[in-house]
């Protein structure tokens, strides 16, 4: 085959007719057949030569496509004046014409009216060269395991950067993000049928069918992406299949979900369309996947929390993203609300106030602020109701929570009332408390210290908060009696104090906390029992014991600092505290170079 091609190459010579045509075009009327032949051979050879040189420029330009520029440079090498006027990077539209037994390819040069050019508005300035680094990667410490990106996955990755980057991009306030045009993928008829089948199976009521479909989808790698989208839509995450079949593409799922939560703009008409519901839903989904899939290695929850928090703390975040962040955090549980949202209430209140009372800047902002406000009230009220001691004084609320205080107060009152009446109502986050598994022991924390430098992410730091999240905090709930909290501080001195501060800050507003900070300042093992007074409305709540153990600093590895608490019970739906994790990860952040 190669031979054939080469033969062909060898014989490729411009037709003499072309020579004639060219000669005519420059005014030479009658050209001898012989001279045509000679010319065409010479010209063909020279063209080949130029093309070969031009290829060199293409290679060095690191391109796969030969451009007119390359040919110009090749001509320049030969000391020939380049052909001007063919600067197009793209396809040059040669036109074809035939007539009088001749075939002709030519480049159409239209006559242009100068005034037309002058009068047309300037085209948009092309975008400048910019450098993109995936945020996720940028933060990657070299200790993290390598992520193998398979073909086609980069797209997902870029969504992730978009999603997470959306918040940070807005943070910068520089980039104008535009809705990415929806990319169209062509589906064959078979694929369309298949899609239909699968959709029916997923959405339909037939459980058996669904099982089969999930099975099929999880096996066909090509269908994965497509099915994922489907599954998200069909809320199949809730079903039992998730763990079995969908664990593997978690890294593909999460970016999409996060995008739905925090994206600045999700639909074309943000002022009219109800994208808030989508955000709520996605946030719930996120919380759920955190619960289901968060492990010590992937640390989803902490990472997600971090992302949300970062965006929330930024002043320039848009309302839509802000809403998403709050929703996302709120869905992660009461403790997260308590530690991350409630302290921010006054700040957010001020911001909302600025929009509500200030001059009307944009309707979108106003809607956004409105939504954020109701969201905050909805989520905070229940938490405040549980944690704040009783007399709900409006003034006091105002002092504590600023602009939102008044409304919060009324919400809290309502919530308390509701709680008292509907004693059995389960929290909307659908936390299902399973039997506590008293499997984790103190010694395990010791083990974890021996592991390598990746440890910061390995330790199940937030266990203390785990307890709090699963704790029988709702006074109305039949809680496991007398939960014991074992709080362990392994290192002495500054570190342990700090850790306690973290603890206390994470529990601000709760009467329990006031007792905690005073604990472990000494070096000896120390066990302290505290009776937790929940201050809840109902007195039915059983007594809680906090056992705080402080050990001398026996080892020096980083993670000890954060492996502070071990629960006597760990529920599978463990909630990790963002604050805690951020602390645990900060050393890693310090050591990394980027």
């Amino acid at each position, binding site marked *: 085959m190669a031979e054939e091609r080469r033969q062909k*190459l*060898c014989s490729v010579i411009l037709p003499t007719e072309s020579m004639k045509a060219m000669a005519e075009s420059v005014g030479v009327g009658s050209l001898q057949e012989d001279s045509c032949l000679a010319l065409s051979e010479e010209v063909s*050879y020279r063209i080949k030569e130029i093309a070969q040189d031009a290829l060199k420029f293409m290679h060095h330009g*690191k391109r796969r496509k030969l451009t007119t*520029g390359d040919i110009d440079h090749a001509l320049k090498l030969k000391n020939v004046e380049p052909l001007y006027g063919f600067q197009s990077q793209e396809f040059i539209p040669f036109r074809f014409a035939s007539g009088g037994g001749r075939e002709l390819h030519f480049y159409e040069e239209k006559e242009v009216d100068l005034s037309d050019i002058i009068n047309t508005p300037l085209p948009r300035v092309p975008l400048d060269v910019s450098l993109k680094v995936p945020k996720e990667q940028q933060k990657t410490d070299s200790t993290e395991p390598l992520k193998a990106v398979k073909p086609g996955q980069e797209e997902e990755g870029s969504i992730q950067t978009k999603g997470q980057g959306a918040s940070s991009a807005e943070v910068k306030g520089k980039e104008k993000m535009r809705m990415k045009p929806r990319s169209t993928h062509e589906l064959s008829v078979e694929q369309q049928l298949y899609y239909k089948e699968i959709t029916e199976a997923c959405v339909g009521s037939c459980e058996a069918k669904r099982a089969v479909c999930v099975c099929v989808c999880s096996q066909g790698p090509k269908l994965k992406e497509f099915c994922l989208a489907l599954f998200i839509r069909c809320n199949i995450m809730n079903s039992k299949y998730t763990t079995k079949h969908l664990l593997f593409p978690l890294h593909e799922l999460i970016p999409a979900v996060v995008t739905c939560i925090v994206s600045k703009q999700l639909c074309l008409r943000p002022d009219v369309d109800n994208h808030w519901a989508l955000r709520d839903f996605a946030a719930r989904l996120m919380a759920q996947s955190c619960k289901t899939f968060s492990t010590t290695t992937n640390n989803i929850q902490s990472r997600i929390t971090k992302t949300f928090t970062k965006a929330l703390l930024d002043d320039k975040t848009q309302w839509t993203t802000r809403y998403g962040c709050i929703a996302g955090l709120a869905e992660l549980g009461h403790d997260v609300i308590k530690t991350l949202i409630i302290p921010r209430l006054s700040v957010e209140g001020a911001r909302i106030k600025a929009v509500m009372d200030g001059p009307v800047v944009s309707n979108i902002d106003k809607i956004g602020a409105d939504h954020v406000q109701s969201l905050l009230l909805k989520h905070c009220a229940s938490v405040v109701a549980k944690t704040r001691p009783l007399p709900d004084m409006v003034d006091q609320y105002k002092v504590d929570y600023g602009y939102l205080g008044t409304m919060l107060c009324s919400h809290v009152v309502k919530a308390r009332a509701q709680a008292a009446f509907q004693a059995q109502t389960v929290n909307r986050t659908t936390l299902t408390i399973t039997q506590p598994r008293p499997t984790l022991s103190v010694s395990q924390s010791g083990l974890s210290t021996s592991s390598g430098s990746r440890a910061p992410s390995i330790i199940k730091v937030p266990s203390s908060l785990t307890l709090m999240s699963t704790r029988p905090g709702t006074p109305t709930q039949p809680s496991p009696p007398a939960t014991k909290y074992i709080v362990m501080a392994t290192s002495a001195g500054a570190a342990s104090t700090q850790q306690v501060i973290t603890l206390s800050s994470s529990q601000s507003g709760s009467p329990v906390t006031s007792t905690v900070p005073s604990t472990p300042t000494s070096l000896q093992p120390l066990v302290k029992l505290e009776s937790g007074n929940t201050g809840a409305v109902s007195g039915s709540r059983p007594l809680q014991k906090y056992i705080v153990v402080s050990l001398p600093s026996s080892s020096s590895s980083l993670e000890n600092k954060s492996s502070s608490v071990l629960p006597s019970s760990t529920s599978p739906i463990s909630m990790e505290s963002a604050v805690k994790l951020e602390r645990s990860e900060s050393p890693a952040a310090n050591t990394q170079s*980027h």
Partner: protein
Amino acid sequence: MTPLLSAPGKMAAVQDGPMELDTEKETKPEILSDGTSKLSGNAASGTLSSSPLTAGGAPKQEDQQTLIAVLQFLRRNKLSESVEILRREAGLEDQEDSQTLDGSGGGKGDRDGGEANSLLSRVSITSAAAPQSTLTPITVKRANEQLDVSVVLSAYSQQGDPSLYQVYYSGLKNFIESVLDCHRAELSQLFYPLFVHMYLELVYNNHENEAKAFFEKFGGDQECYYQDDLRVLCGLTKKEHLKGNEVLLDFRTSRFVLRISRDSYQLLKRHLQERHNNQIWNIIQEHLYIDIFDGMPRSKSQIDSMSGSFAGEARREVNKVKVFHGLLKEPEIEVPLDDEEDEAENEEGKPKKKKTKKDSMGSKSKKQDPNAPQQNRIPLPELKDSDKLDKIMYMKESTKRIRLGPENLPSICFYSFLNAYQGLTAVDFTDDSSLLAGGFADSTVRIWSVTPKKLRKVKSAGELNLIDKESDDVLERIMDEKTASESKILCGHSGPVYSVSFSPDRNYLLSSSEDGTVRLWSLQTFTCLVGYKGHNYPVWDTHFSPFGYYFVSGGHDRVARLWATDHYQPLRIFAGHLADVTCTRFHPNSNYVATGSTDRTIRLWDVLNGNCVRIFTGHKGPVHSLAFSPNGKFLASGSTDGRVLLWDIGHGLMIGELKGHTDTIYALKFSRDGEILASGSMDNTVRLWDSTKAFDDVETDDFTAATGHIHLPDNSQELLLGTYHSKSTPVTHLHFTRRNLLLAAGGYSSQ
């Protein structure tokens, strides 16, 4: 500091010197006339290396010679009248007479008489040059390339019956196919050079149709890796085309080197003598260099791994020169105990004694490496205070370095250039990974800061005057805060920028461009400081020495040049490649320079004396990337054929072949400890290879070391540790941070 300066004349002598005696034995009258040719390849180096050879008063002879050639042609075609007229007009009677005496002995005989004078002068020059050359046997004689084109071509003028060429060739082909298996592979090497030379002879003698038929009949038999050359060749069908075709000239001027065992050679010789096949025997004698060795004939795979280059394999003796591939001793720097470091650890009150021990790891390298060059073999710039600080930083960072290995692969962070519209041509990172430079086809160079630290210019002279020079933070004060930005654009080139290189101290940036210049930019003021003009043609690559001050550049004019930043003329010109120098790299000890070329060879040059000390053949396409291992012992090279080859510099051997990429490899980099080799390619992938294993697996017994007949295990798949695809971003550059995080960069191409 004394710069390496050498007069160009001296360089030329070195280059021209090694004319082996066997050239003289040949009857071929290769008259060395002054290179008046307009060939690009000769333009730059010609002025240098031809200087000792101009004595013969060549220009006149050149004319005469052309005339003689014409006359000969006329006579052959029985145009006696024209012969007479031309003779009269040119006043060539005397020469012509002598020529007729020599009579019909073909082209060479004709000239022997006519140009006895010039030949004499040439021989005397050659023999004078020969003694000097004993030190440096360079295979491909640069001097040869100075031959005038017409002379070169007239070498083909010998007449044979054009219709018999096919018979000759197929006769040889039949013979080679019928010999014992063990010899067949070796003798098959003859096919390609013979084919090319016979084809060119046909073309030269105006047998266009025979040439075409010959090409069509046998062109398909050639090894697939000669495709590119054959494509060029098939375009050549006219004698006029031969003039000015560089490819042809290369082929003609450099003798194709074959490595054949003695047994096989005897076999061939016997066959040709029996058959009285003088045509082929002449070509072998005149155009080929057969490097005969004693011992077992090589296998097909052994041959294939080494062949592919433009002019055959490297001669064995070329790679015998000792190369000091060891590293220079690190200067001892006292590392002050650093307090602000590791605050995180301090919080715990953790003892940090052991940190201090690690810092003084300079002691490890105190022992001199026996393979290392003398510390002052070439003058190196002295360390400035800032360099020392940087070294300290480096040491600190390296203590935190992740140890890589097959189980512990690096994370890869990809920097994509958006909206570059396919215009990104070159990328470089600073050693500390704080800055990134990109060269673009629109002739700009852009610099980005990839850390939060912004890029700032130094204030203008007037403003600088106002600064309190005694203050402690004077270095901070001289910076103009108003100019802080994340990226800066450097404009100055007038053609696409093909490579960029940061100086190790991060104060300068080099860029080379299609416009034939290399520019030096200051990263303090973000202005151009110097434009180094020397290459007349596009400069494909430039690279700073690891110690700064020196840099090397290589371009379309087929030479690599060594420069010092404070000299506007090159200090060394490395001439020898038969085609464009596509990439250049400094050895970690700065004493050597490696260059890769379109002629599919890699050469290693000694910076001290400009000699070529290694020639590596084996690539089947233009070499586009090179990387030295951190210990200086090995070299990796990647080419358009998608293969990475590994070379042992000390022994001059190929020691590995890494197959996997499907397109040109533009980026190669060893991890900081040399355990991992990363390669990035046009096929949008980054691949990681286990270089430790690749180097360990090599059998280096004495035999292979002596003969260079390495048997490569085909273990690419075992060595491949990972393949990482980007969606649509070719990998232009790779860089390991000081902690072994892998950074990759490339321009996103939308389609």
